[in-house]
């Protein structure tokens, strides 16, 4: 049913946890299936210096979260944000069973929210620094 790569991520998930005082926080939940994924990231010099993830849900969801942390670790924010559905799928060994593809959506969405959160904070900070209020 699931590829060995996926099982490996499920059984030995990487970067589990929640960073304290993260630079970005993103969470996504799928209403229909009840699954939830959360990313916390620390960014330094425009690259992902640390990442923590938590997941509740189906096996692909848990595994995809773990795979994603490995894919973004040390990458520039831009490249992290550009990681595609296909990249993630590949990291899990290929095609997911029918009806499980939304696990990828969930994980991508949660990551994008974490990165967005970071950008928003940056923007806010910049505002504060520049004293600018639109």
């Amino acid at each position, binding site marked *: 049913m699931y590829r060995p790569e996926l099982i490996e991520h499920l059984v030995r998930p990487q970067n*589990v946890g929640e960073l304290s005082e993260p630079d970005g926080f993103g969470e996504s939940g799928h209403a229909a299936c009840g699954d939830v994924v959360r990313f916390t990231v620390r960014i330094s010099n425009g690259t992902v210096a640390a990442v923590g993830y938590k*997941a*509740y849900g189906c096996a692909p969801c848990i595994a995809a979260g773990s795979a994603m942390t490995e894919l973004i670790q040390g990458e520039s924010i831009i490249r992290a944000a550009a990681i595609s559905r296909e990249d993630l799928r590949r990291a899990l060994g290929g095609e997911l069973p029918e009806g499980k593809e939304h696990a990828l959506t969930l994980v991508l969405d949660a990551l994008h929210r974490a990165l967005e959160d970071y950008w928003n904070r940056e923007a806010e900070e910049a505002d504060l620094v520049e004293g600018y209020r639109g």
Partner: protein
Amino acid sequence: MGIYLDHAATTPPDPRVLEAMLRHLREVRGNPSSIHSGGVAARNAIEEAREEVARLLGAEPQEIIFTGGGTEADNLAVFGLARAAGEKRHIVAAPIEHPAVRNAVKHLEAGGYEVTWLEVDAYGVVDPEAFRRALRPDTAFATVMWANNEVGSVQPVAELAEICRECGVPFHTDAVQAVGHLPVSVEEAPVFTLAFSGHKLYGPPGVGVLYVREGVELAPVSFGGGQERGLRNGTENVAGICGLGVACRIARAELEERMRHERELRDRIISGLTRIPGVSLNGHPERRLPNNVHVSVDGVEAEGLVLVLDAQGFAVGKGSACSSGEHKASPVLLAMGLGEREAFSAVRISVGRENTVEEVDRFVEAFSGAVAGLRELSPLRTG
């Protein structure tokens, strides 16, 4: 090979069953319908197996119909009883039935039958008084399973069958999980029809049984060479049938010992798992299958847990074996009042003959560790 704790999904065939099958596959040459001596030997082997099966149930050999599996037997009972009932177009059924019965009844419902879906209590058990009230003069048949395949609760089938007999309503029971695991007697429970499946009692896959009480009328649902009194057409699976006969003989001889052993392991697992915080037993605490443990694990989805345990060499089930491919909450658990999340967190552990105390102890430890790991992962608990 790892430790197999999924006997409710399928049981590995007993070596004595394999031996009997193999003997027939290698030595008997002939279609049971053929009149030469190979055919006669095949026919005799089937009739011997029929006697073994009858003996296990307290039935007569001519009341035993061999089918291609449990589902086929259930379908034959449901459609056969419905079509034999003529104008009567009301059915009484439990919502906790296996899909082999539930979906067959639903098909009739879609075709215009009126179905009274009974309520069940929090243990998944049907109330005999409510059952009695549901019966009507136009009830074609009623059906409640002997024991549930998910939560393991045993139904008061003897009582329900007796009520049906009083009311003159045909009663079918799906005893797929019960036969070979509990004493099942058609003398004590006056059912009209009863289904079971070879691969659930250490018998072969691809062969099942429908018991049809003498005098009960079933309309045929398959057509062909007229085998099994025209109720299951097609060349008989002689080797499978012989294997099933042996499985029934063994079950009769070893039932008590089997139950004692399974209960011991089951109770050990139940007490070990329910000691973990947030793990709760589903199904009836006492009136349950001797081999069944069914728990919900707060904060953990079953799929990951099953796979993590599998990676450590323990095979257990999630939800019902038959629909475990889908991400849908089991209707059985919902009918018992569980929420979606509790349903998705349900794991079924079903022990068997060959399991040992040492194995289940190791399992409890592994389970505890796996749950801890997955909970650590969960964003729901440590917000």
